[in-house]
């Protein structure tokens, strides 16, 4: 049983932390420490249980889509929408939403957790549904090897009680599906789109003879002005506000998960209507307006994500900036930049390069013969320069996680930036 006093005290810490402009994890840590059962007890109250979203790329965007789709179906949804995808972030988010007695007024929780934290989490709280997006080389300096990461996702799948939704095109995830008690549902890609979404092995040239694949519940069939999905055998087309082809594939994942959760109660028309209205998550192709021109923030965390982003967005007519930090949350190893192909930026060049590892990035571009404008490790200065030099032009900034947080903070002083803390 959660003790009301720890909820109350936690809320005060959260309030103070927010006044200080601090992060979301501190109040979470506080409550976790004084009341170990807080998260478990609170989530156990939910009638539809817990939905867990994990994988290397697309967690934040997909979680946001799932939340909005479920809300469109009439459910009251709790989520950890700060992108603080650690257990403490969940505790902190819960603190904001529970009443003083520790009661959470929601039907279902949709949580994004990174692989390592998810393993810890499911040990205490088995999810009813889980969605496994992909296993790519990300932050290997944190987890070791990609097969280890796949193993972590396997533990999440094992712990899931109702349905595991799996990316059919990821061979490591497909393997996990074999020994599960839970029901398995797949989302996937039409054959002709495979080249657009290489999995980790494809990207590294590994032998991937295409084997017989299981049928999908939701398949992304075509992308263009409208996105076309094949849902339960029927084609459905809709225009989307989501930017970038990779986000559209995340939408397929979110559709499959929502269908699993709603079961027979699903309202398919509302489902597609909600999907059409979803906007990108913060920093994931998010569009701000600066001096009357759009400025897009595109989060890049790993080679596959960076490659997919470069394919998703046309550089023509846009001033491009790249900001690379190497703090813990970004990953300290710069090797990943060398697994990204920057040829597509050769025609336009890159106007500005910044971040702690600006010179690593500039060096990378030099070897792909991409012209580089200003290089400045100071993010605030580089941003100001970039904004004034390209005042009349649409802009796009590719940035690592902590660089994105810093850039949003800077941009918040000159334009409307949604507060998501």
């Amino acid at each position: 049983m959660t003790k009301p006093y720890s909820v109350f005290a936690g809320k005060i810490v959260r309030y103070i932390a927010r006044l200080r402009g601090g992060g979301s994890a501190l109040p979470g840590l506080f409550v976790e420490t004084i009341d170990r059962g807080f998260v478990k007890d609170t989530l156990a109250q939910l009638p539809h249980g817990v939905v867990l979203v994990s994988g290397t790329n697309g967690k934040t965007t997909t979680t946001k889509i799932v939340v909005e789709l479920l809300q469109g179906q009439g459910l009251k949804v709790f989520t950890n929408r700060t992108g603080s995808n650690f257990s403490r972030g969940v505790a902190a988010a819960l603190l904001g939403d529970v009443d003083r007695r520790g009661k959470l007024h929601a039907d279902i929780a949709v949580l994004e957790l990174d692989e390592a934290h998810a393993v810890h989490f499911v040990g205490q709280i088995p999810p009813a549904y889980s969605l496994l997006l992909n296993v790519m080389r990300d932050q290997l300096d944190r987890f070791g090897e990609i097969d280890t990461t796949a193993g972590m996702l396997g533990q999440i799948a094992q712990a899931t009680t109702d349905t595991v939704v799996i990316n059919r095109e990821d061979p490591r995830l497909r393997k996990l599906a074999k020994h599960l008690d839970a029901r398995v549902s797949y989302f996937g890609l039409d054959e002709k789109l495979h080249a657009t979404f290489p999995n980790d092995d494809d990207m590294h040239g590994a032998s991937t003879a295409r084997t017989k694949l299981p049928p999908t519940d939701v398949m992304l069939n075509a992308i263009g002005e409208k996105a076309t999905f094949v849902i339960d055998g029927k084609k459905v087309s809709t225009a989307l506000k989501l930017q970038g082809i990779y986000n559209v594939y995340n939408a397929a994942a979110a559709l499959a998960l929502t269908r699993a959760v709603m079961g027979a109660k699903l309202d398919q028309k509302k489902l597609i209507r909600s999907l059409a209205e979803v906007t990108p998550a913060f920093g994931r192709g998010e569009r701000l307006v600066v001096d009357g021109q759009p400025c897009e923030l595109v989060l890049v965390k790993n080679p596959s994500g960076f490659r997919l982003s470069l394919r998703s967005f046309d550089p023509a007519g846009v001033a491009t900036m790249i900001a690379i930090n190497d703090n813990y949350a970004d990953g300290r190893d710069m090797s990943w930049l060398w697994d990204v192909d920057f040829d597509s930026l050769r025609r336009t060049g890159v106007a500005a390069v910044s971040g702690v590892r600006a010179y690593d990035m500039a060096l990378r571009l030099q070897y792909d013969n991409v012209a580089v404008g200003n290089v400045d490790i100071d993010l605030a200065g580089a941003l100001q320069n970039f904004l004034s030099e390209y005042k009349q032009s649409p802009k796009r900034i590719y940035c690592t996680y902590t660089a994105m947080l810093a850039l949003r903070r800077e941009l918040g002083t000159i334009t409307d930036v949604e507060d998501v803390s």
Partner: protein
Amino acid sequence: MSAKKPLVILQLYPRDMNIYGDHGNALVLAQRAKWHGYAPKLISYNPGDSFPRDVDIIVGGGGQDSGQDNIQNDLLRIGPTLKQLAEDNTPMLMICGLYQLFGHSFKTQDGQIIEGIGLLDITTVAGPERLIGNIVTQSDLFGEIIGYENHSGQTTLGSDIQPLGTVIRGAGNNGADGFEGALWHNVIGSYLHGSLLPKNPAITDWLIRQAAVNKFGKFTPGDIDDNFAALARRHALKRPR
């Protein structure tokens, strides 16, 4: 002009052994060879392929355990060819997983012995923890070497081989003896990613020089702007482990 001076750069097992941006090493070798006035040709060798006859530089990287399983038999098969090439002073760069398998053996956590090709006089055992982080070493040949290490294998040099560098900051071959990497004839083994070659152009140019001397009798360096590399090195040195 440059068309007359081809240099063949062979990537060893890029399908299975190229984790952590090891492709960057091949890319940087090819680009700098071009900037030095040569005509580089980048080719791949994967398990089951026939080994090409004319090779001037060989690079190899690290892999998952599964990747190492895929290539091990094939590597043993071409081991004698590689040894001959090494004895003929062909420059090679082997990072992480292939560095280990170029040695005598690798003993896994559960005591299983994986046989290497014994080209380098080194042995490796799986350690209890991964050695991870930014690393700086000092080498007589190349000065300060800057990179990022990420390995659980602990490697010990035999009596017949010298280290690539001594550790200034980081763990190195095994976290105990202060050595990093290995150097024998023109073969460099190392745990350093980063990727290694972009931020250490001295090593890149040395590999190209050896290849050029082998093939054309001399090496005339081109004029390359290494300003970004110098600044990337300077900032990398300031980063925490």
